[in-house]
């Protein structure tokens, strides 16, 4: 293959890791919601999209990226809290499909709200000035923003891990996802935990959105393929497994990136084929537990 | 006592069951003779339900084997267990709540006749309907055929479960706490039913109502902390010092 060098491969790998970081973060949010509430958030892609729009909007308004990164998850988290409290909670006890269906309907509403607020064309994406341009990573010049992206998502994921593993609240969340009864015995209101976790999940989705916004076009439909892609990551990683979400997220990003290099027309298809292969030989996913279901 | 060279209908060999870090069963070995009516008992947490699930094919043990008439069936799927003649009722009532009582049993009897046929009218399969009627009569539910099974009283739902379990014409019937949640009257009815059923096939029960077991079974197996503790006739078990110590006031 003419022009293929180790450097080119390395750069493409790095691009894949940057893409995969977003996937990992998204899938982690999805996993937390599923692990704790047993709900697959079909509005996850929509929250991602809302995060991207709000991110561009706040950045345009304040010129402060850090501020925007802090504000966006608060807003999408708040929308999530309202959603759980008034739309999803009434559905508990009804049947596993109902919350899923509701979030699907919600995604339609969120998409339309963004269309009305920001126009059907979307907004031009903004890269913060300090992160524009490229930097030397040894094997070549790589966009500064993507390095930032990898670093920041790694930090966030570590932070989430720390929160779950080491804090009291995290313990409750971990315990609750295994046995809501135990949590009740501990004197904690399970409903509050569900509320909180759903909010955290949508906050993460929004955060992924703003972090991804400089790397792609920001339009109301951007969350639609993202939903499918987060499902791919979840299936590959294993449902309910946070480690699986992160590892699979990075893997899927890399697979996409490398396929773009060798067979660009097949890039989107490649990650779905990966998922199909995993389904065939290990249906529970890389880190999922065998035989566990619904 | 049966002669040593008659193959037991069901045998558990060195069965262990591990759930993550928790060992629910440790090296349990025992066998069940054809035609016997055995109860598995033990204090809470003894592993009775887990053992029941392994014996009935709900999941395979982490270690060990299950033999049916001498044949290793350890890793067969639940539906395969049913097809070879091992039938069970569940601890938590497991009927098709939205379907009528008659439809519930008919789904079970249909299995024997016609599984994949999607063009024939189910109502024309007279043999399945007759079998369903017969089974409902056996368990005393023939008057309630048209009622939605979700609307039945608890004891009636359990009777329905037994009717469904009988539909696969089992040579071995496993019942998980068949009288759980029943009133004294319902319990007596169920006991009579089990007694009759036991004359035609091998029955294994999980129970903890001791008075019930004493009057019903000809053999008892005692589990404790996932291990095999003792076995014998009701009298032998009642007088077993270890069993008394373990139960101490329970029963």
């Amino acid at each position, binding site marked *: 293959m003419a022009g293929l060098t180790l450097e080119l491969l390395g750069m493409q790998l790095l691009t894949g890791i940057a893409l995969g970081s977003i996937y990992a973060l998204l899938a982690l949010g999805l996993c937390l919601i599923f692990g704790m509430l047993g709900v*697959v958030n079909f509005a996850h892609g929509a929250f991602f999209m809302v995060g991207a729009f709000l991110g561009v909007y706040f950045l345009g308004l304040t010129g402060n990226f850090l501020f925007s990164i802090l504000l966006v998850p608060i807003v999408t988290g708040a929308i999530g809290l309202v959603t759980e409290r008034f739309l999803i909670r009434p559905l508990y006890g009804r049947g596993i499909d*109902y919350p899923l269906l509701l979030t699907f*309907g919600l995604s339609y509403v969120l998409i339309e709200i963004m269309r009305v607020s920001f126009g059907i064309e979307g907004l031009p994406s903004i890269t913060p000035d300090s992160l524009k341009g490229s930097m030397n990573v040894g094997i070549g010049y790589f966009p500064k923003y993507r390095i930032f992206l990898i670093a920041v998502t790694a930090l966030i994921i570590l932070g989430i891990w720390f929160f779950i593993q080491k804090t009291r609240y995290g313990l409750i969340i971990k315990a609750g996802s295994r046995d809501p009864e135990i949590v009740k015995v501990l004197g904690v209101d399970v409903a509050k935990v569900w509320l909180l976790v759903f909010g955290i999940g949508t906050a993460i989705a929004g955060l992924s959105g703003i972090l991804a916004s400089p790397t792609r076009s920001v339009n109301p439909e951007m969350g639609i393929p993202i939903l*499918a892609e987060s499902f791919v990551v979840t299936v590959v990683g294993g449902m309910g497994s946070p480690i699986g979400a992160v590892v699979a997220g990075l893997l899927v990003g890399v697979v996409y990136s490398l396929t773009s290099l060798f067979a660009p027309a*097949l890039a989107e298809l490649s990650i779905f084929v990966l998922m199909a292969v995993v389904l065939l030989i290990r249906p529970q996913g890389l880190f999922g537990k065998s035989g566990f279901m619904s | 006592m049966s002669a040593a060279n008659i193959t037991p209908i069901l045998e558990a060999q060195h069965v262990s069951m591990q759930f993550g870090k928790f060992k629910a069963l440790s090296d349990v070995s025992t066998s069940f003779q054809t035609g016997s009516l055995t109860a598995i008992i033990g204090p809470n947490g003894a592993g009775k339900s887990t053992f029941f699930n392994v014996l009935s094919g709900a999941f395979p043990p982490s270690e060990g084997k299950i033999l049916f008439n001498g044949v290793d069936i350890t890793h067969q799927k639940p*539906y395969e267990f049913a097809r070879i003649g091992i039938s069970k009722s569940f601890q938590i009532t497991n009927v098709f709540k939205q379907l009528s009582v008659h439809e519930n049993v008919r789904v079970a009897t249909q299995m024997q006749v016609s*599984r994949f046929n999607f063009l024939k009218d189910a109502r024309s399969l007279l043999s399945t309907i007759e079998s369903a009627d017969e089974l409902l009569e056996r368990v005393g539910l023939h008057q309630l055929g048209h009622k939605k099974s979700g609307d039945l009283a608890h004891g009636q739902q359990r009777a329905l479960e037994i009717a469904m379990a009988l539909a696969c014409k089992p040579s071995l019937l496993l019942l998980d706490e068949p009288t759980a949640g029943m009133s004294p009257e319902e319990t007596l009815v169920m006991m009579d039913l089990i007694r009759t059923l036991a004359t035609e096939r091998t029955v294994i029960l999980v129970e903890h109502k001791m008075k019930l077991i004493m009057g019903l079974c000809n053999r008892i197996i005692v589990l404790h902390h996932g291990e095999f503790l003792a076995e014998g006739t009701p009298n032998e078990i009642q007088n077993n010092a270890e069993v008394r110590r373990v139960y101490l006031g329970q029963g």
Partner: protein
Amino acid sequence: MQAIFQLISTHRVLATTLFLMVFPWLMPYEALAINILIFGLFAMGFNLLFGYMGLLSFGHAAFLGMGSYITGISIVSFGMPWGAAILFGVIAAAFGGLVIGFLAIRTRGIYFSMVTLALGQIVYYGFYKAEKLTGGENGLRGVKVDPFNIFGFKVDFLNPLIKYYIILFFVVIAIWLVSRILKSPLGAVMEAIRENEKRVSACGYNVAQTKLLVFILSAAICGLAGSLRALHLSIVPIDSLHYLQSGQAVMMSILGGMGTFFGPFVGAAVMLYLEDVVTSFTKHWMAVVGLIFIFFVLFFPKGIWGSILEYLRVQKGTPK
């Protein structure tokens, strides 16, 4: 009132056929009636799997789309007669059902919904990229049916009313098939699986095999809807394969009443008629649909027809 419903219920295929024969005159224009036929069939095929068996697939657009594309490609690229093209479309969709079903059934519960959505997207991207055959982003064009003769009677597909009745012919056959399936032993097992899979297994049924069979039947019916749609539109839009199209089947089923015979058609009719009306005075149809759907999920999960049936059942005081 009760007696009428009882009569309709017993002769449901006949009742539906008679109603559908006069349906074009109830609608403002024929194309809407045809759309309702096609999507009613789509929802009906989907409902077999979801309403009756409890498996929520978000990938059924793959079968609608496969039916459309294979029928279209048969005509456009291979010059086949339209009857054969429909057959190929249905077979292709059934085969798709076999492959996707086989992979998806290895999973259960909510996982199933995620997996079917993602598998459906494989079909979407696959057809998208196969530009030479499918037209890619622009869709497949030129699916034409030339006028032909039946018993000396000239049948011109360009006449909307004639087109409606030809499509109705196939739809009625499919409705009859669905009715038979539901009344058959398989139908009983399907509903039992929805209620309690473990119990069905304990009775000796190979539940996985049964699910796969129903998946294939469901896919074939949705494929037929797709084949008919290709002939109706003369084009096949690429979005036929997208999961949002699958979502439409889900919404129609919930709206109309899942697990009921007439529900899917009621849902399709209501949704498409509403879309026709609403889009004439606003472009925010997506929000309207989303809100209506949320409303039904929260307050009317049984759907329009399902709620009516429930009301009658309560009135009568019998279980089923």
